[in-house]
């Protein structure tokens, strides 16, 4: 069985990526299961998705704890322990990272037993056009599996993007195809495990007896003041809105519509975005009647983490 986990951020097309890979494997004759996993997250929050593929009906369900391939579309996730990107990576597993840094560099940093390989997604995008990171990674991942033909992969892209305009589908196909080509030398790097051949189940679970505990511990009542001031949610952002004061008419619509209450007015009545809380939903940019709000890729804005109070 192939057990593949894909990590990224909301908005990078991770769910679509898992579906493209799932469909490509299904078209290649496999029984398939694919699913995204998310809670109440929004754009920019860490999410992951997974794909299983096997010769026979798949009975396993839910999270993959022992993957044979882990795909990381966003390298900043390594800094977030909660994203749990490296869970279950053993010597047999392959880790694919979308990064401009070299595989050796990552190996040194991560100190993993398994194999690390890198897709320079930014370079592909420069050549093929703007395509979500998830889709690029799928091109590489499909080749690493070695059991998906380019034709099946491109058909899967078309199938999963059906409803988008033809040009967007074509751009995606080109980029996916290019990523697929880049990994020709590593085709089949991911080892397929026999069905059920996970680590053999030898250690019993360490179940515990729960005692009836005293309140307030036993009730999920946790109170704390000023949480909204402490939790700076701007780290979810992948793109940021920028207000052009020359075009702004000071109508205040962006301030009214901002779901985070993250836009205030300065002394002259111009809106000012508080990037510590802006999640990059870009509602303001979409609704601005004067088109006075531009959108910048977060990676092109330095430093990547906004400074305190940065306007």
């Amino acid at each position, binding site marked *: 069985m192939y057990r593949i986990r894909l990590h990224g951020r909301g908005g990078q097309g991770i769910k679509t990526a898992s*579906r493209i890979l799932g469909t490509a494997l299904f078209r290649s004759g496999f029984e398939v299961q694919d699913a995204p996993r998310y809670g109440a997250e929004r754009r920019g929050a860490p999410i992951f998705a997974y794909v299983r593929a096997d010769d026979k009906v798949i009975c396993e369900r*839910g999270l993959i704890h022992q993957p044979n391939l882990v795909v990381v579309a966003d390298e900043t996730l390594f800094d977030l322990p909660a994203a749990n990107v490296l869970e279950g990576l053993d010597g047999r597993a392959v880790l694919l990272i979308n990064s401009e840094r070299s595989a050796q560099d990552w190996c040194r940093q991560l100190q993993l037993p398994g194999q690390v390989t890198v897709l320079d997604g930014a370079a592909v995008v420069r050549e093929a056009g703007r395509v979500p990171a998830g889709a690029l990674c799928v091109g590489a991942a499909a080749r690493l599996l070695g059991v998906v033909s380019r034709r099946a992969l491109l058909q899967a892209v078309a199938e999963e993007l059906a409803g988008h305009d033809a040009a967007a589908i074509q751009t995606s196909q080109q980029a996916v195809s290019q990523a697929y080509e880049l990994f020709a030398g590593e085709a089949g790097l991911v080892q397929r495990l026999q069905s059920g051949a996970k680590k053999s189940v030898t250690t019993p679970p*360490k179940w515990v007896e729960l005692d009836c505990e005293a309140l307030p511990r036993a009730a999920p009542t946790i109170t704390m003041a000023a949480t909204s001031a402490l939790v700076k949610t701007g780290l979810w952002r992948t793109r940021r809105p920028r207000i052009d004061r020359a075009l702004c008419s000071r109508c205040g619509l962006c301030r009214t519509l901002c779901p985070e209450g993250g836009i205030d007015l300065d002394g002259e009545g111009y809106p000012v975005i508080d990037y510590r809380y802006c999640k990059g939903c870009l509602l303001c940019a979409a609704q601005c009647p004067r088109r006075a709000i531009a959108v910048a890729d977060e990676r092109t804005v330095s430093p990547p983490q906004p400074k305190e109070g940065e306007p």
Partner: protein
Amino acid sequence: MTRILLTGNAAAAWGARLAAVDYVPAFPITPQTEIIETLAEWIDGGVLDSRLVTLESEHSMLTAAGAAAVTGVRVFSATSSQGLLYGMEMLYNLAGWRAPLVLVNVSRGLSAPITLEPDHNDVLAARDSGFLQLHCATCQEVLDNVLLAYRLAEDARVRLPVLVNLDGFYLSFTREPVAIPEPAAVADFLPPFSDCGLHFRGGQPSSQAVAVLGGGLYSYFRYQVHLAAEQAAAVYAEVAADFERRFGRSYPAVEAYRCKDAELVLVMIGSFATKAKAAIDGLCAAGQRVGLVRPRLLRPFPAAELRRLLGHRKGVAVIDQNLSPGRGGILHTELTAALYGLPQGGPLLVSFVGGLGGRDIAEEEFVQMVEVLRQAVQEGIAPPPRLLFTEEELQQVRRLQDIAHGRSEGKGEGEETS
């Protein structure tokens, strides 16, 4: 018959589409929303000739659903968790009206604390309403169960609403290969809604009588719901046999997996049962005699079938993905009642509670549950019920409690405020 990848939610929508439903009152809730989004898209695109109306709550949604069903149109709706409970009052009403509709529930644990992930306390809260209940373990079963449910609901011997349950995330958002039956074949299996004596025409307006009844009349009508629900067991068997004949997929009221020579049997409902199958395959390969029994039909409760399948086993472990505080696992309670008083004494029953709020059940836990059951059988004594909860999980809770209570007791509080 085409086989494509579908989520459980999309499979539910396909079921409604193939059943050619007339009316879909709707209200969104995670993880059900994709069902009504899919139907809305089809209706908008003209591939489904139906009417979808978004209501202002699940209570209104179910009221509209029941009212429409008793005017003689085929009604489909879907909800989950808090939404099902918000409409709970109407569930009893719909059953009392004998409204033959299908309601899909996408299981999600109930608040508080809040979760989006599945357990079965939501659908089991509707256990005593008079709705029949079908439980799914795969996306294919979701689609097929919706079709079976309409046949069951609309049968003149039954005429009761039916709940089809699928687990959030593990089915709702998970794509699997699903065979989509030919619409013509479905139309043969499930003819257009015959009004079951229910009809309403705008040109002949009429009201349904509402009266406050005394205990005797109330007893009569409420017990009629019970008798119809019991009668539904035989009707279900007929309908499932007809479905198998036409589509080749077999859906007995109770699924028995590798049970032929099994001495020990696990009993559970829902999609986690396929995880149990994976574990059982491993155990059988190692020479153990272990099987799985999975009730698909939970109302009416297939007590006779469960006695037949379980009465002669040495041990049975019930894995409840639900909890009745102050009592324990609901399925365990029901099974104990069903197996009580067997002439041969019946199997030893052991109770496990696991998978609450979507908490995963690991393969080694299935293995260990079988081991606990084996030892209990050897000793002839059932151990106390066991929550599937590990040391590591408790440590995680402790870490969070320390942070939370450290803060609320004043340590560090306000240090980052400015």
